[in-house]
């Protein structure tokens, strides 16, 4: 399992790719493997305001469902349109399968996030 070094991670097994004041959010390789075959990703409407910790959607496999939580606050500016028809991409390419893009209210509020090594420790211990 891989945890790219250029991403930040959460204890809820999400990854965050921050570029300027916009962040892409997805779920980790570990998370997709735990869930099994993903069949559906429920995503919010564009424009929705999120505070860190808000549930903004859910991800379903055949026999499990897991909520998605906003790792940082901001406004949803885009949702990944291809996941509607190809939810399986979350399994095959977890780090390309971003779910939402958030315009961050505070791009520097990353103190609660983990780096790659920290996340790997979390899932291997």
């Amino acid at each position, binding site marked *: 399992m891989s945890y790219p070094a250029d991403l930040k991670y959460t204890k809820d097994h999400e990854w965050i790719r921050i570029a300027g004041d916009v962040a892409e959010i997805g779920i980790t390789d570990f998370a997709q493997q735990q869930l099994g075959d993903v*069949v559906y990703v429920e995503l919010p409407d564009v424009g929705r305001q999120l505070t860190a910790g808000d549930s903004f959607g859910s991800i379903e*496999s055949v*026999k*499990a469902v897991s909520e998605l939580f906003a790792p940082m606050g901001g406004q949803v500016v885009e949702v990944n349109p291809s996941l509607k028809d190809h939810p*399986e991409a979350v399994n095959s390419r977890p780090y390309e399968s971003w779910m939402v893009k958030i315009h961050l209210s505070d791009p520097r509020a990353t103190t609660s996030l983990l780096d790659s090594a920290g996340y790997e420790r979390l899932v291997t211990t």
Partner: protein
Amino acid sequence: MHSLDATDWFPSRHIGPSPDERDDMLAIVGAPSLDALIDETIPSSIRLTTPLNLPPPESEHQYLRRLGQLAHQNQVFRSYIGLGYHDTFTPSVIVRMVMENPGWYTPYTPYQAEIAQGRLESLLNFQTMVADLTAMEVANASLLDEATAAAEAMSLMHRVVAGREPARHRCLVSDRCLPQTIEVLRSRAEPLALSLDVGPASRMTFAPDVFGAVLQYPDEAGLAQDLRPIVERAHAAGALVAVAADLLALALLTPPGEMGADVVFGSSQRFGVPLGYGGPHAAFFATRNAFVRQIPGRIIGVSVDAHGHTAYRMALATREQHIRREKATSNICTAQALLANMAAMYAVYHGPKGLKAIATRVHRLAEILAHQLTELGVAQRNAHYFDTLQIEIPSGVEQVRAHATERSINFRYIDEQTIGIALNETVTLDDIEDIVAVFTTALGRRPSRGMRETLRQTAGSLPATTGLPGALTRTSAFLTHPVFNTHHSETELMRYIRRLERKDVGLDTSMIPLGSCTMKLNAASAMLPVTWERFSRIHPFVPTEQTRGYAQIIGELESALCEITGFAAVSLQPNSGAQGEFTGLMVIRAFHLDRGEAGRDVVLIPASAHGTNPASATMAGMRVVVVASAREGSVDLADLRKKAGEHRDRLACLMITYPSTHGVFEDAVREICEIVHAHGGQVYMDGANMNAQVGLTSPASIGADVCHLNLHKTFAIPHGGGGPGMGPIGVAQHLAAFLPRHPFAATGGERGIHAVSAAPWGSASILLIPYAYIRMLGASGLADATRHAILNANYIKARLERHYPVLYGRANGRVAHELIFDLRAFKSAGIDEMDVAKRLIDFGFHAPTVSFPVAGTLMVEPTESEDKAELDRFCDAMIQIHREIEAVVTGKADAQNNVLKHAPHTASAVSASTWTHPYTREEAAYPLPFVRERKVWPPVGRIDNPYGDRNLFCSCPPIEAD
């Protein structure tokens, strides 16, 4: 026992192991006697000290003879009451081949889809039939009854609309919805703080806080009206519309889907399902594709199997309570699969032309009757109708009532001056003549001699059109799929039903060892009377003097269930275990409210609880607080104390399953109940595991205040392939006043909650089954059944624990009536619980419960009905599978290309010209000698579950697709 005493006693027919087998099994279990085993299994502190006080057992024939006499205390009137229940002809081929056929009534909910393709196909027919007739995009495979379907429609509309606009909390309900529907809507709206405005549909105002409207079509008095104006107003205001519809009417009337409805629901009863004094019947529920993830209950979908062939399965399970728990769309679990299958077969048999002919005939009879009554000078108030007339008698209805009763006719007496007459497919011109005669005599007119002739003339002279306006006349086609246009001869339908049946595994094939489901014998003697006319052909709202037989049976059954639970009162209204949970929680809620403790809304639920528990708690407006499990699987007492203390001012109750979902009689159960009581809470016992208690301990003995009983588990109602079920609740004295009432019957407590079901005694006709079960077993037989259920589980443990670790047990190693095998150790070799479940199919067995209550495990419940030979076959199969796993673990077998991963093996795969596996065809299909005699060929290979959910398709696939 006297030598001339009856010889056909039921206990030895019901209980599998013979006395000799029992002794052999005890030796293997390592217990000196059955009593000793029970002493080791159930804590002495909760044991009953005296036998149950029940009437002495009856032999099978004694029972049937007495029941025949009781049947004669019911009177079968011609009932034109309507209100969602209509007499119907069940085609005899469907009675014999489906309703009375263990091949259809004994299977379980189709979780093991590979051996459930027959009923899955039929349920897909049901969904297609509903979607076609209602003109909606997607339908589910049945709900409990029309009234609870209305409540589910309300919930769906609220979720969808309030999800976007949380302030919307008001639901408008037409006062022309069925009265029992409005009652159930009230009972479900109140705990969720939804406001219900009941009033005339024409005056509905869609204020900004309205999320939806519920309408009836045709309405409860029979009036059929164009719904488009209301739907347009609702949609313009951002609200949704749900419509209760009559399926038969939709063969003639413009379907609600074409009028813009967002949800269409109703009962499929009149499609050949007997009245049964209230049920069981299947409700239907259809909506738009956009809301498919909000649908409650089971949805059947199309997928493919490992060989790429079309295969059916239950789709979108993540909506359901067993996965989403308190966030589920509904608590519904058991539904009405058997009855949905009967309704679907009725549509398959009659086809679109036949249904239209039936509907047209009923409608014309109504027109003829309306014409004749108008000739008599009586006013008929429905401007447009399908089959139901509303008659005004300014001088009062009493004369009509008296003359109708004399002729064994029931009308609906709406008020002092109004009578409802709902016709149905069993009505003939003779019946119309009788109805006209009743009115003629009641109005003091001279009966005309040539009545019959007049009727025939009327029939001939009425215009050939339906008399319905264009806006209400259906023009679209329905049931165009070949399955509804092929099986119209009895020969063809008989073969179609048999063809489907052969694909499925029921108790008529082999043991179904599903943990927590209690798949015991559904005895033929208990089943037979259900289809007797004097039980099956009675409308639920007839006057009580016509149902003295039912009244006696219901009274005796209630007493027996009180005796068995140790409680003071019982409500037979809930139609499933989950509905019993909701009812029990609402009773607890009413109790707290009555004591001025409205703030008590916290429910403590152990982590290992059935998913229905948290889902029901949410529906009852309660907050779920999870209590941790200790390592040995029992409730973590420290965590319970902590959480009960934290919520002491808000604690409503604890929901606990006993014996636990881990299959263990927890020693601390009394202490658990005392902790909850000490903090002001009540104890709700989930009765799913009651089969380990009956006659030996009881919910009252452990300290519970309420419990539900799954009559379809413990008390032998068949599972029907996913329903019917019954979930009556028992309550202690202090809760009896709050049991649910009903608008059409004297039942429930004096401060009772609103009705929870459409009918006063739920699915009354199948109460005959637990009644038979209890009367034929008697007190000693019931206790013996429990003892043998425990023996059988401990025997399986003794035989298999060397091969598969058993997860939980008492300190002395004894399990209750079920046990959990841990398969997680094999995961590193790539073998999981699903591989074992599917491999069991090759041996002819249905899998145990998979991954509940612990992921990666199998939970086995053998029940008392299986004899030693069947238990041994199952154990032999499990041991052989263990050898096969070992071969993979040790590398002797390939990690992927092995007999487990490719299970189950179809006949076409095993007989194919090419065979690419390293194991033999014989190893695949006949892994043990006993299989040769009993081979079950799965019709499809392993089903691709993700494919089905990613490519959702929920109606009959085009024939070319395969």
